[in-house]
């Protein structure tokens, strides 16, 4: 009796979907391919040829169980670092850190991991996910766009061309994020999503904007946002009981020292913060407690509470003199 057209409602009826879930690596956009891959439990790493395409990139991945990795387009895997033997378009990423030698003569292609939920390492804590080489492909903005349930390591330090984007909110088991010295990565998200985070450095990276509190990461051992002005992290360094390196020079994250403690790590490398939330009492207590704990300096031997931190008072004068005699370098605002 009633027709949609008569009621004027036909405009609200969705059109029949034309969505084709099969990825077309030549034609689909990276964003669309990512979505399709997500539906298939796949993870894409986009590669781009560089130079004349004759070089070989070394890519290192790890999985919680063996999984096939395919390469699309003109990309090829090899079994040697020279890129001369064992040419193929598929390989296996194993449970140990797996080295893949990759060549791409021109254009772009994708590495297609077939079990996204089993991918555990984009590199390892000590090894980059890619070693760039002359005329070899680069990782062209690999996006952490969907959940990567098992990823615990992401390392892409001091690379000049490769980069990641996306959010660490998709990597809730992340333990290590090391993109120190990589100026192209543009990663967002909150460390509140990564409760197992132990090693975090975005040193010298200007594009990442990461939030959250260090209080969320109870196992934190290394935290470095030096040279990054976009990230803003709160929290109490008194609770970071395993951390002997907190460096935020050039970054004004509102860190505090509320929870007084004597159980510092066996040695203390560095505390470098510029926080408007650090009161004179906190600054004094920090010096007093570190001195009283007996912790000795190592490596950088630096405690820097300059910048936005409140000035010291005479209450910490004795502790500061003692810390200097132990070998610490102290930087602070004058009383």
């Amino acid at each position, binding site marked *: 009796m009633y027709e949609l057209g008569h009621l004027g409602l036909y405009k609200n009826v969705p059109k029949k979907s034309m969505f084709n879930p099969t990825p077309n690596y030549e034609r689909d956009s990276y964003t669309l391919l990512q979505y399709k891959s997500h539906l298939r439990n796949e993870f894409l790493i986009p590669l781009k040829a560089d130079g004349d395409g004759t070089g070989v990139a070394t890519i290192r991945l790890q999985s919680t169980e063996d999984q096939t990795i395919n390469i699309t387009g003109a990309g090829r895997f090899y079994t040697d670092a020279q890129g001369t033997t064992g040419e193929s378009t598929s390989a296996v990423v194993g449970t140990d850190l797996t080295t893949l030698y990759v060549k791409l003569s021109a254009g772009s292609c994708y590495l297609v991991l077939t079990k996204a939920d089993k991918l555990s390492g984009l590199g390892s804590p000590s090894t980059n996910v890619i070693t760039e080489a002359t005329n070899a492909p680069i990782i062209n903005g690999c996006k952490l766009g969907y959940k990567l349930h098992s990823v615990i390591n992401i390392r892409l330090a001091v690379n000049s061309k490769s980069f990641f984007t996306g959010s660490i909110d998709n990597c809730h088991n992340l333990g290590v994020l090391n993109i*120190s010295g990589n100026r192209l990565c543009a990663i967002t998200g909150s460390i509140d999503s990564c409760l197992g985070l132990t090693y975090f450095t975005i040193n*010298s990276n200007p594009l990442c904007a990461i939030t959250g509190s260090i209080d969320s990461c109870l196992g934190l051992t290394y935290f470095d946002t*030096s040279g990054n002005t976009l990230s803003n992290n709160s929290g109490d360094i008194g609770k970071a009981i395993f951390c002997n390196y907190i460096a935020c020079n050039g970054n004004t994250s509102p860190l505090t020292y509320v929870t007084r403690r004597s159980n510092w790590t066996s040695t203390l490398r560095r505390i470098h913060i510029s926080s408007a939330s650090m009161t004179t009492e906190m600054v004094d207590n920090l010096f007093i407690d570190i001195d009283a704990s007996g912790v000795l300096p190592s490596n950088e031997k630096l405690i820097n509470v*300059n910048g936005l931190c409140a000035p010291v008072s005479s209450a910490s004068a004795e502790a500061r003199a003692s810390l200097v005699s132990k070998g610490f*370098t*102290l*930087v602070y605002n004058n009383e």
Partner: protein
Amino acid sequence: MKIQLKDGKATINEPIAPFKYFVVTIEPAIETPITICFGGTSCSFLIKDSVQIDLDLGSQVDSLSINTDKLIKEVTIDFFENEFIEGL
């Protein structure tokens, strides 16, 4: 710059351009604590003969003062503007 100390102290009232780090050398070379104040910022450390301190204050400072052992007669401070990357 070379700075002569009197009773382990000296004050210099002249502008110092922004720097990334500085190198301090003392004469005579004995292990002693030293505090160098750049305007409102103090830097305290132990020195034996020469030491490099990474300190980027981000702006010009207008005065410098030194406080160390009375035995130290002369301090040389060289300022450097180079970029550096830490903790890689």
